[in-house]
């Protein structure tokens, strides 16, 4: 019988790092602000906590992978993030790596 805690631990290890890739890919598709990005991630089954996502967006911005503009159309101004050219290049690289992993997994025989 598989322990739920054990499964959760391995899932967490597997998903670590996927959040930044997902953010870069989603923001390349469509620039967005933090809260909407949280809903989009959740909709894809990649639910992320707000206290993880907002600092992550800031870090990716500092690394030059994201850019942002202030959206002042609403009563409250919001930061709208978009993936930079460097960010898009990184998404391409990581996507290739991911596909390599998927191919490798598919080539492994199922027990």
């Amino acid at each position, binding site marked *: 019988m598989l322990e739920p805690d054990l499964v959760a631990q391995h899932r967490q290890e597997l998903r670590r790092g996927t959040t930044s890739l997902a953010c870069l890919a989603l923001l390349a598709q469509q620039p967005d602000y933090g*809260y909407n990005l949280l809903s989009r991630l959740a909709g894809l089954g990649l639910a992320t906590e707000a*206290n993880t996502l907002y600092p992550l967006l*800031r870090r990716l911005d500092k690394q030059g992978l994201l850019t942002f503009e202030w959206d002042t159309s609403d009563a409250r101004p*919001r930061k709208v993030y978009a993936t930079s050219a460097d960010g898009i290049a990184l998404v391409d690289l990581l996507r290739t790596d991911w596909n390599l992993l998927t191919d490798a997994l598919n080539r492994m025989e199922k027990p």
Partner: protein
Amino acid sequence: MTLTERYIAAVTTKVPAGQREEVASDLREAITDAIDARLDAQPTTPASAIEREVLNDMGDPEHLAATYAERPLFLIGPALFLQWKRLTVLLLWIVLPIIAVLIPIAGYLDGDSWGAVVGQTIGGTITVGVHLVFWVTLVFAVLERSGVTARDVSEPWSVDSLKETPDATVPVGDTIGAAATLVVTAVFLIWQQVYPWASNSAGEGLPLLNPELWTLLLPALLAVMAVELVVLIARQVRGSWTRADAWVTVALNVASVTLLAIPVWQHQLLNRELFTEIGWPDAATTVTLDQVEWLTLVVVAVIAAVDIVSAVRRARRVTPSRG
């Protein structure tokens, strides 16, 4: 001040001054968006309850501030932990035995009472140990935060660092040396009593050690030495160290040092009558018999400490399956 503003203030005070404005506006956006979304989803819930819920989900402000500032949430991370542990353990092994010997000597030279010396030794050794761990840890915590890597503080590990003999064997030379020391000491103890090298005016022999000690302490010491000899030979026959050997070594050494310490403390290890007879120490020297006795005790205690340390180290190299 609203609850949200209090939360934001709690986070921003913990991030570097240059980032405060940005982090505050980030958080204000995150929290108000989350509150609005939940209010839309559950219009019957009071706004204050929603605010509390959202802030609880954001979690400990200091944790969030550390995530923003990219500060580690640990004192010493996995990159430096082993270097920290090795240095701490090494320093404790080197420094504490020295302190544990120096404090009693200093106490004795000051003429402190026996109880006071024991208290000072225990208290002083603990204090030095706590200081040592504290300062080493502080240095490593600073290194951790200044971006120093393990490669900067030590050589990278390679197979050359493996121990040559993982299982401690028992060299025949060690056993013969230890056995010879025991036998010579035992023969000396008996010889100095049976064939005293001086006698008083009445022709009675005057042994070097106080003859009254034969009522209990010296026979006990000989018994401890006999047990030690049996353990030595048993170990040689077995051919390897065990964990039990280490404990027996500790017990035997503590017993020997204690048996020697009692007469030293009572100023009656050496036969005072003999020294009065031969007229030493005389006016030409400042050495006292007490000092000679204490020096003997210190030498024996140091040898015992070295013996204990090497026994524990050898026993630790024993693989569990054979221990």
